[in-house]
């Protein structure tokens, strides 16, 4: 075109609307490895400064762990850089199979299939196994990738109110006549940090003859006594039909995801899941790193234990300081500010204090529920957490919100 001024102006106009609404996403450039201490250039062109990262999914501090790096180096040497193929043509190495087996063993499932990302795992799993005779019943707060996967599937779809078991039961009764019923939930919800009530959900699924899928992306590696995930936490190992998860967060953070669960379901994905059949295999270097991550996790629970202690300390510290935080049992700890602009200002002031944490607001969270989402890591030492807490308190005092209720904060700053 015909990239006419009409088209250009249309997108320019939309971009300026995003900017005017104050919801333009600006990227900060990191010049170091991912870790508790990072070196950041922000805004673009500014000199690089050292800050403490309080918002990564590097829950176990393994994203730049020396043993993982060493394994990746060796992976490059032994198995090369890329495979330049999908899995079923010439993209399967012995280490891909090895990782699938390791995941199966770790999660206590029957079989596992790797995907380039958990986004792709979620995008591909539903269409591969369900048809229009079936029903997907999902929690209203599940991740965007599950929503896209359901949009690509011809099965019928219904939702239940977030973690509301009575509502789920109603929906299971309502859809009793469908051939296959699949209940779908995140294990840990990424914006609030709360855990799905898997124990009750499993019971309901048994009662109403439904299957269950759990996305454990924000739990694999650290939730549960030995870090297996939410199914371990709720004593439901072996009772979850499908677990999807990622290697892109706690498990090294590079890339890759998987579907793990019943043997036939995994087999069906291998034959039918479109992102598996039509996208590249995970590169050997990444596989080598993830294999090392599982070695580390299997040898000791030290890192997830430290994460639990860190998260408890952080929750207590914020609460005692007078912040409103969302209750939960995960290392995702949202500091509630309610007002979108306040969340952005707060984040900027924290950055000036050397603390990197992002403010989230509508549409990522509901209107009037703006927050700073903090994510704790086993990579954090006490001095990191103390410095971060002091900064939160200092900025909290500046905005005079410490000890205030939600009503008082919104009265001051608006919703």
């Amino acid at each position, binding site marked *: *075109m015909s990239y006419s001024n009409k088209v250009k102006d249309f*997108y320019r106009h939309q971009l300026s609307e995003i900017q005017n609404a104050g919801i333009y996403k600006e990227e900060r*450039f990191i010049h170091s490895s991912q870790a508790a201490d990072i070196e950041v250039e922000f805004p673009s062109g500014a000199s690089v400064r050292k800050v403490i990262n309080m918002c990564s999914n590097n829950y176990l501090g393994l994203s730049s762990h020396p043993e993982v790096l060493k394994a990746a180096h060796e992976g490059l040497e032994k198995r090369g850089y890329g*495979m330049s193929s999908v899995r079923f043509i010439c993209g399967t190495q012995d280490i891909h199979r090895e990782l699938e087996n390791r995941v199966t063993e770790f999660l206590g499932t029957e079989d596992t299939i790797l995907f380039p990302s958990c986004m792709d795992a979620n995008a591909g799993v539903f269409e591969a196994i369900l048809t229009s005779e079936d029903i997907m019943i999902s929690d209203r707060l599940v991740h965007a990738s599950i929503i896209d996967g359901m949009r690509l599937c011809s099965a019928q779809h219904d939702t239940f109110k977030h973690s509301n078991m009575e509502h789920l039961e109603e929906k299971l009764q309502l859809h009793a006549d469908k051939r296959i019923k699949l209940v779908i939930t995140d294990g840990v919800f990424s914006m609030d940090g709360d855990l799905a009530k898997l124990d009750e959900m499993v019971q309901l699924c048994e009662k109403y003859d439904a299957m269950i899928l759990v996305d454990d992306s924000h739990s694999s590696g650290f939730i549960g006594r030995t870090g297996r995930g939410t199914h371990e936490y709720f004593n439901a190992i072996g009772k979850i039909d499908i677990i999807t998860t990622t290697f892109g967060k706690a498990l090294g953070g590079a890339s890759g995801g998987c579907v793990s669960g019943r043997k036939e379901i995994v087999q069906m994905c291998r034959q039918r899941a479109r992102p598996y059949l039509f996208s590249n295999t995970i590169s050997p270097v990444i596989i080598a790193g993830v294999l090392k991550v599982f070695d580390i996790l299997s040898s000791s629970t030290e890192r997830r234990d430290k994460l639990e202690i860190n998260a408890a300390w952080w929750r207590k510290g914020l609460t005692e300081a007078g912040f409103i935080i969302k209750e939960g049992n995960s290392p995702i700890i949202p500091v509630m500010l309610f007002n979108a602009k306040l969340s952005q200002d707060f984040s900027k002031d924290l950055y000036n204090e050397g603390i990197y944490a992002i403010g989230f607001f509508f549409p990522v969270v509901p209107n009037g529920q703006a927050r700073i989402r903090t994510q704790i890591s086993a990579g954090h030492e006490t001095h990191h957490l103390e410095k971060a807490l002091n900064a939160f308190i200092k900025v909290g005092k500046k905005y005079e919100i410490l000890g205030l209720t939600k009503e008082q904060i919104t009265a001051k700053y608006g919703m």
Partner: protein
Amino acid sequence: MYTAFKDHLANQLKEIEEAGLFKNERVIISPQGAEIELDTGRKVLNFCSNNYLGLSNNPDLIEAAKRALDDHGYGMSSVRFICGTTDLHKKLEKKIAGFFNTEDTILYAACFDANGGVFEPLLTSEDAIISDALNHASIIDGVRLCKAQRYRYENADMEDLETQLQLAQEQKFRLIVTDGVFSMDGNVAPLKKIVELANLYNAMVMVDESHSAGVVGETGRGVTELYDIMGQVEIITGTLGKAFGGAIGGFTTGRKEIIEFLRQRSRPYLFSNSIPPLVAAAGIKLVDMMTKTNTLQDKLHRNSEYFISRMTSLGFDIKPTKSAICAVMLYDARLSQEFAAKLLDEGIYVIGFYYPVVPKGQARIRVQLSAAHETEHLDKAIGAFGKIGKELGILKK
């Protein structure tokens, strides 16, 4: 409830197997290359990878990846806009834009995700997508996720495209979408003509250069270089997972506002991990290498011409191709499987494709040439094809 579902799936799996369509994976225990080693202990020549430039195990890329491991660690554990953007990501985005002569670039976990996330943010139900019938599955899925009106034209059929453009005139914006090289046939989209029609009917153009970047055009800049129309298409998508090192990662490159808008709204970008720094670093190295010398592209072009001309003179029925994909037509699904199995016995690793990957009655062996192939590799493969072709009665004895 799994019991009932288990039976249901087991039946479906059995049907797939009985139809001879079950995909079994061969296990490789060496790096990717012209010669690979299988877990059976056999060494075979690989003629079915997308390793077009032979860079999947390139020492310079590996060196760049290692350096990034040391400087920037293993993973970012974040999406781009939270804390998953490094200086390397920004640098690679600029390099790719420079390579394709575009305005800006956005990286994705894969080109599958680039294609999955490009349409929905840009187009609404008031707009039209006009798509080639043989476009890649990831484009189809991206279109399925978008509310725009859909029009489809027969593969590379410019009369049909014109008809569809006429039908789409009532929509506000129009986007023509095509693969640069069609992966199953190897033919190149008639992009020059597409751009002409786009100008005539006021449409934008998007081309997926996954199988053409690094391969097509004198310096490997893809189909826009081949037709001398660099900078004239609005959107190019491509992958780092084939010719460009073959690890992971994809991109959308094109008009500034479009890329900027995708950064704000494209779901696979906002909700999936940033590519690891080592992949970004190897990508930067790769663009530098490709800008400096043409050796690999030249060798790939020579290899492709050599292989295709020899195979044609042997009497094989080859789909017209201008890429490194050479479809050896066998038509019958069972024959394609038997042929591939016998080739493996001869030490040649290829795959036979049949319905539904290609149309019914269009089964074939897809050979993919690489700059990693030496003449002796090509001769061995040609020899094996000839031998089995005669054995199976396809070629005259």
